[in-house]
Each structure stands twice: as C-alpha cells, then as structure tokens.
C-alpha cells in the first residue's frame, strides 16, 4: 500500500468514533476531574455512615447514668449493673440533671421513702426510673412473685446502622443523580456550550442519553462503595436478591435523573438551579426516612410522604436488604418510582431549553 493509502485507511478507522461514546467519555472525564464531586459522591456517604455508625453503635448493653445524693441510696442503686451511679451534693445533682449528665436523680424523701426526679418525656429517664426503683425495692427486701429469666438476642438487621445504610444509599442515589444532571446541564447552557453542540450534526437525544448512561456506570461504583462499606465494616445484612437490589438502584437512579433533568430543563444560572435542587431535595431528606422512620410524621401526611420518590426508593431498599423482600413485595414503591420517571422525563422533554 502506498503511504497515502495507509493514511486514508488510518483516517477512516479513526473517523469512526461514535458520538455517543465520545459524549459519555466527556461526562466521565468532567466528573473525574472534579475533586469536589468525587468527595460528595464517594467519600462523604462513607464518612457519614462511619460517623453515625459509631455514634449509634450497639454497646454491650445500655448503661444509664443516674445520680444519688446520699451514700445509702447510691449503695443500693449500685447493685443494678445497668445503672452507672454517681453521688452528688444536692447542688451538683440539680446541675447534673439539668444538663443531661444524668437521666435521673434519687433523693431521700421524708419517712424513709425515695423521690425520683426525671423527665418523663425522655425514654432514658423512664427506663432509669424502672431500673432504679426495682433496685431500691429489691435492696429493701422485696421478693418478686414471678420468677423471670432473660434470654438475649442481638441480631444484625435491627440496629440503627442497618436502618441507616439503605437510607444513605437512597439519599446518595438521589443526590448524585440530581446534582450530576442539574449542574452539568445548566453549566453547559450558561456557557452556550449546549447551543454550540446543537449547531453540530450531533443527534440531540444522544446528549441527554449520555447523561443517563454515565449515571448508570457511575451508579455501579457508588452503590458498591456504600453497600460494600456497610456490609463489610458494620455487617449490615443484604438479605434480598442482589439482582433485585441492582434493579431497584437502577430504577431509583433513573427516576431521580429524570427529576434532575426536569429541574435543569429551563434554569439559566447555576444559582437558580441549585435553589431548585435544594427546594426539591431538602424536604425529602427530612421526611423520606433517611435518618429516622418516616412513620414518625402524622398519619394525615403519610400518603403524601409515600408518594415521594426518595421514600419509595428507601422503603424498597430496606425491604430488600433488611427483610429479604422480593420485587413483588415492593411493587407499590416501584410503581411510584416508575411514575416519577415517566412524568418527569416527559415534562422535561417538553420544557427543555437548548439555549
């Protein structure tokens, strides 16, 4: 072959770059070259899980701190192993109770009785009251009419960290999808890069598709990081089928991506977009049960909360991981996610501003 012929073959071969592949590569490069994004997506959830996991780790057994103001009371209370008893002067005792250093104070009452001072809205206070009273009554010679023995079970799956990891996973799915879509799209629009792209023969749906595809690929890493950390470090159970779990993550991520696309469909500035994103995500962080159960909110608003995509995603993830639920059992949640996906995507396509 002549040199020119070789050159033309080479040129022909290189000219076959697929636009979609190039667009996805661009998404990856931009993401990987943004250290902040890497931190929020990969490092932050782990730090959060680690921090909360340690703060709420299950201690051998909860020891409650209480205070007593006389040595006699302190002695009889110390027989209860679940109480950590400190003896105070009357003044120190008040201070300790008020600042929450102790959950309960035992004070001598007239006629040899005892007075408990505690906050009855605090579960620790109520538990301390039961333990302290039992200790004092038994110390004074009370016999229990019914013999009782304890058989303890501590099972992974019912701890706070087990509750938390699926919540964090859901929160991460939402955050990375909405931030990932929103900022990149609005930035490209603001810099008129989007306008420049649509002036080329690039098929427009490739542009949007490149966001979804790169999201799916990053999702694998994100889920693996958070899940791997929870399972490996805290022994969080993954009782359901992993394939089902993967499907739920994909569905959730797509629904949030569609929501992100909708948020970014018209915004012209980063400020406007990030305002919209916060307004969208903040309520869900609170009510959708990331850190505490969404059941704590009044019954009246439960249907509303259940219709939120993050609630659906987290409920489905918990059902799968903690209870080993099948896809059929999370069908309502999948329905909610599917509805958000379709509605947001269609609305976004209708509203989307290319310039």
């Amino acid at each position: 072959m002549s040199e020119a012929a070789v050159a033309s073959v080479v040129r022909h071969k290189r000219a076959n770059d697929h636009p979609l592949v190039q667009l996805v590569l661009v998404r990856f490069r931009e993401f990987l070259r943004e250290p902040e994004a890497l931190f929020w997506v990969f490092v932050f959830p782990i730090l959060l899980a680690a921090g909360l996991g340690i703060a709420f780790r299950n201690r051998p057994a909860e020891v409650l701190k209480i205070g007593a103001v006389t040595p006699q009371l302190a002695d009889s209370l110390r027989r209860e192993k679940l109480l950590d008893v400190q003896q105070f002067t009357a003044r120190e005792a008040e201070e300790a109770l008020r600042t929450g250093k102790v959950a309960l104070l035992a004070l001598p009452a007239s006629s040899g009785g005892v007075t408990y001072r505690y906050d009855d809205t605090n579960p620790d206070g109520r538990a301390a009251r039961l333990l302290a009273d039992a200790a004092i009554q038994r110390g004074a010679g009370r016999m229990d009419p019914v013999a009782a023995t304890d058989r303890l079970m501590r099972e992974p799956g019912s701890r706070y960290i087990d509750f938390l990891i699926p919540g964090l996973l859901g929160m991460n799915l939402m955050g990375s999808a909405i931030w990932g879509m929103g900022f990149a799209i609005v930035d490209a629009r603001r810099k008129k890069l989007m306008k420049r792209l649509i002036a080329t023969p690039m098929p427009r749906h490739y542009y949007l598709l490149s966001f979804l595809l790169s999201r799916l690929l990053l999702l694998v890493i994100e889920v693996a990081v958070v899940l791997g950390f929870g399972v490996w470090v805290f022994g969080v159970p993954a009782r359901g089928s992993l394939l089902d779990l993967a499907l739920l993550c994909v569905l959730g991520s797509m629904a949030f991506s569609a929501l992100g696309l909708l948020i970014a469909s018209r915004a012209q500035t980063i400020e406007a977009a990030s305002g919209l994103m916060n307004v969208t995500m903040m309520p869900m962080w609170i009510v959708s049960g990331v850190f505490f159960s969404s059941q704590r909110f009044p019954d009246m608003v439960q249907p509303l909360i259940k219709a939120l995509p993050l609630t659906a995603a987290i409920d489905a993830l918990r059902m799968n991981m903690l209870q080993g639920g099948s896809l059929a059992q999370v069908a309502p949640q999948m329905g909610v996610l599917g509805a958000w996906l379709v509605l947001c995507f269609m609305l976004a396509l209708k509203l989307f501003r290319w310039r």
Partner: protein
Amino acid sequence: MNFALRVHRLRKTFKDVVAVDCLDLEVRPGECFGLLGPNGAGKTTTIEICEGITSSDSGDVEVLGMRWSEHADLLRQRLGIQLQETQLAEKLTVYETVRLFRSFFRQGPETAEVIALVQLEEKEKSRVGNLSGGQKQRLALACALVGDPELLFLDEPTTGLDPQARRQLWELIDRFKLDGRTILLTTHYMDEAERLCERVAIMDHGKTIALGTPRELIKSIGVEHMLEFSGGGSARALDTSVLCRLEGVRDVQAENGSVRMQVTELHRAVPALLNELGRQGIPLTELRTRSATLEDVFVTLTGRHLRDE
C-alpha cells in the same frame, strides 16, 4: 447564478425589538463575505438564523441550495460554525474537545490534522481552561473545521483578542480562503472586514445600508482621503467655514481641538490648508492623512461611529 447562501426578506423580532428587518443577502461560493455593523445591528441574529439555530419570523433562507425546514441533517454535516462567546468545557483537553466534535461528523480530517491546522499542536494535551484567549478562539475554529465544511460561519472571531492574536487568526482565515471555502463572518472591526472580506454588507438597525467590495463602498462616499490635524490651544479660534471652501475638500468636522477633513484631492488640499493656517496664524501641532476606511463609510452613512453606544 448559484449562491452559497441566499437570504430574502428576512425578518426577526424579539418581543417589541426588531432585530432583523427585511434583510437580503447573497453570498457567492468561494468568497469571504463580511457582515459589518455596530453591536445590536442584528448581525448575530442574522448569522444564527442562517446557521439554523434561531428561527425567523418570515423570509426565506437558502443555504448551499437547501432549506433548514427540509434538509437540516444534511446541512449540519456541511457547515462549520463558530458562535460568539461559546465557552468550551474547561476540564477537557484540546485533543478531547476536537475529537468530540469530530465524532459528530461523517467525514472530515482527523482530529490531529485539525489541531495542526489551527496551530495548537503544542497545546494538544492542555486543558481548555488553561488556554489564552487567542488559543481558545483557535480551538473554537478547529471545532468549526472538523467536518471539512463548505461554508464557514464565523461570528466575531477576533472580538476581545490582542492585536497579535487577531493577526494570527486572520492568517488562518486567509488560508481557508485559499482552500476555496465560502466564509460568512460578522465583525464590528472595519479593519478586519477590509483585510479579510471580498464583499461587505454594512448593517444598522437590522437592515443592510450598504453592500459591495470594501473599495467600492469607500469609493461610494466620494472621498478617498481623510486629513486630520490639530492646532493646539489656538485651534478653537479657527474658522472652519473657510476650510470647507478650500480646493479638494468635501467636509470638515471639528472635535475637541482636532479637525477632520474629508478630502478628494490630497495634493491640492494639503498646500491650501497650510496656506490658510498660516494666514490665520495658527500653529500646526499634528497633521495626519490616511485613506478613507469602512469606518468612514459607516460614519458618513449613519453619522455615528461603529463602536459608539
């Protein structure tokens, strides 16, 4: 005759502002055609309608014998477009950027060839964010050239560049002209239009107010030279009405101490002026003559400067 671009009675309004008002344009194959005018004259709107990224209210646009409504996909493959103030992704390298744009086109030179064409080989691995203004503009040009376009649209290619970077870009554009490409460029620099364009349309308020080669346009105002002088502090006492009557002088304008004269015959006007100044006893502190430019054409036609407002 075949036209690379034909615009007929084009009209575009934004809310209550008429951006383009009944505009006609014809660009011949192989020529470099300039749309010259001040900011807000409607140049960018016009070029973006021709590029198929802005819709018109009425009128007809025919690009390479095709219309956007019928052959959008085909047209996009054959046009090279550089938009005003596009910021390419800062985190990508020069090579990655050009390769991305190259992937959208069915045919065209290889990525490395295009980069060599705009003389950015040494910057191939640099991030876009680290490039100078001139280098960014050359990269934007590379992105316009990846599809080996027949028709190249350049919207203010040198705005905001330093003189050296402008000259470098002009040399590149010169080279594309040698390849026989058709170029439509907008600019508000008259020297740029004179240097690069075979024909120029001067736009103002969405209309063409003059059309022709730079030489023709300059000739059309009937003045070939400009004579400028100042006479220090005593120039205020100068009686300009006398200057108007001097031989070979068409018009006289006095502007804070300096005087501008439109002159048809330099060899008669200069001695006459010196004579007159001597008679009035006014010392000459500065005297300049130059050929009339497109700027003078614009000033003559509109009474304003290109870069006023």
